[in-house]
């Protein structure tokens, strides 16, 4: 194992988390907590895979994944924005629903070979030693889309008018409402955007990073990790990118520990008894918890934190306005 392979694999794996995390940041910034990322992601993974298989066109597959994730998220939107249901429970329901739908419609997809995302090397950047092969060579296209998404989201949130409105409806919806910003419509929009990105994350797995359909194991909890990363990132897209790629790399790097017979000159216990690998498999989940603890600490130091209206239904015209 060497650093370049770990970084390369980490960036690819991290892209999945990046899409899901940035999507959830947009949703939560608007004041809606959507815990259904895992379900939307799995549904997107299934939809992307099967649409690519059915149409023979991978881009239609990606589109199907995005729309599937988005469509499912609208169910959450309706229930939480209009019916003012508890956002936690609705998000859990969405996880069940998405997983169930994905498994029902994904019946028989295992072992199929649809067209996959093409790999791409960036002409000049790809040639730089070390940096090139680590970050700019032989990635599926969506990895580069991820690169562009980070500054775009950052700029959108902090430097544009719609981004300003997004921050306002998540912090103080009544303030936005009184100056004519349509809180309900925007919240739907960002719930949908979050769903689309979660669906895209799913397609990134099945059509790019680790192709194939392995039913519920396809996502194996990455949707939940993404929600943890949102807190770690303190609702900031740049921090989210750092977290996602770091997580992707750690995830890969740790799994690669199992390969070599010796580590730093010592006998690798993992090589001798592969059962110790179960502890390695735990690490992403344990690391998520650690990331949460670190995120909470960072929040205490700086004036960061969750959008003030996160999880609170906005009811217009409530007496006492």
């Amino acid at each position, binding site marked *: 194992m060497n650093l370049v392979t770990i970084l390369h694999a980490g960036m690819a794996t991290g892209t999945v988390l990046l899409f899901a995390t940035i999507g959830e940041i947009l949703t939560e910034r608007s004041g809606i907590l959507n815990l259904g990322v895992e*379900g939307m992601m799995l549904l997107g993974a299934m939809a992307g895979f099967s649409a690519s298989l059915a149409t023979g066109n991978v881009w239609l597959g990606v589109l199907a994944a995005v729309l599937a994730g988005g469509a499912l998220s609208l169910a959450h939107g309706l229930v939480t924005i209009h019916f003012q249901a508890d956002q936690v*429970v609705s998000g*859990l329901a969405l996880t069940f629903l998405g*997983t*169930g739908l994905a498994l029902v419609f994904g019946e028989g997809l295992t072992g199929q070979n649809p067209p996959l995302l093409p790999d791409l090397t960036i002409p000049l950047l790809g040639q730089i030693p070390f940096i090139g092969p680590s970050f700019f060579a032989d990635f599926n296209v969506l990895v580069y889309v991820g690169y562009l998404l980070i500054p775009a989201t950052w700029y959108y949130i902090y430097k544009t008018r719609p981004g300003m409105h997004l921050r306002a409806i998540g912090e103080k919806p009544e303030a936005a409402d009184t100056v004519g910003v349509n809180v309900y419509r925007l919240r739907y929009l960002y719930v949908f955007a979050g769903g689309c990105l979660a669906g895209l994350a799913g397609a990134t797995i099945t059509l790019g990073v680790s192709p194939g359909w392995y039913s519920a194991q396809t996502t194996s909890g990455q949707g939940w990790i993404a929600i943890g990363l949102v807190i770690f990132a303190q609702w900031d897209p740049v921090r989210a990118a750092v977290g996602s790629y770091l997580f992707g790399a750690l995830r890969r790097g740790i799994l690669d520990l199992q390969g070599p017979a010796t580590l730093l000159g010592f006998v690798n216990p993992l090589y001798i008894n592969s059962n110790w690998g179960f502890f390695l498999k735990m690490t992403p989940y344990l690391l998520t918890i650690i990331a949460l603890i670190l995120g909470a600490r960072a929040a205490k130091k700086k004036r960061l934190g969750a959008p003030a209206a996160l999880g609170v239904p906005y009811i217009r015209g409530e007496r006492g306005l």
Partner: protein
Amino acid sequence: MPFRLTFTKRIEDVPRWYPFVISLGAIVISFVISGILLKLVGGEPLVVGKYFYTAAFGNWAVFSDTLVKATPLILVGLACTVAFKMKLWNIGAEGQFYAGAFAASLVVLIPIVPPDAPRFVTITLMAVMGMIGGAIYGFIPGYLRAKFEINEIITTLMLNYVAIFWNNFWIFNKWSDAGFQMTPTFPKSAWLPRLTDYARPYKTFMETGNPAITGFLKNIGLERISGMTLHLGVVFGLVMVVVVWWILERSRWGYEIKLIGDNPHAAHYAGLNIVRNIVLVMIVSGALAGLAGMSEITGVVHRLQERISPGYGFTGIIIAWLAKLNPFAVIPVAILFGGLILAGREIQPSGLAMLLQGFILFMIISSDVLLRYKLEFTRTRTSGETV
């Protein structure tokens, strides 16, 4: 839109039967939607539906199997009920279930008591260990939440995965039964008594040929119990229903749980120790889920193995919510879902039971809006927003 949906806030309380009817309606609608979806993927909803019914409630034998499935669900449903009452989102009942199963297994795997120890001793010790295992596993996220304000939803969920890998390590590495992914079968002293165990003495009685005895036994229908796998775990479940009900509705601690759940600021103001209560509730919630794990391995599987739970921990969330956090209502809801899981095992596609669960939960929380608002459809000329 030709129609406009308007919400009007209800002023008066709805009649007592209203929430019940609405919940029932929500379940029916979920079944209908799932049926339509099944049709879409080329299934036969009516055949499947009929199969669901006969496979879960068709006769006493399958109903006994349904109750066997309902047993862990009752306990896990209670675990979620306790936590949700305090608005503590423990969605780690699955992991606590595994932790409980693991800890209980230690009694016979280490072993702590010899295989020929009296059944009462072994079972009691396993139940205690199961509860301790689950409690420890609930304590971790509870402590993180109480002390560092770490979101318990994510920690409990992450710990679910950890628990499963932890179990696998021991099953594969230490206590593997001849290389299989399971431990050896537990000694009989670690089996919870089942109804079918009492069928043998019954047969002996029948062989006496004494018409008075055989006639009596036939009359009360005891021959049916042969083959019934219903085990003592269901009694654990029912006892815990009463215990949890007493805690929540009659005890001082239950009042504190509800007060913290309704308004933590007010609870703090009233002098309650919120940090301690969060940890305690997570411990109790974890212990209940751990007991479910113990009941499952001692009552059904009789060994520790992979996949001892088809997602009981998650179904428990739905059960608690559907039962509106009422411990007694957990029983019928758990039986319904027990049937669903039992019949769902043999149904293709395999995700159908999960899909149905998702729909039911969605419909239930959506239908709550009908308790708070009156919905009216009115005709409009111009397209209007629905606000």
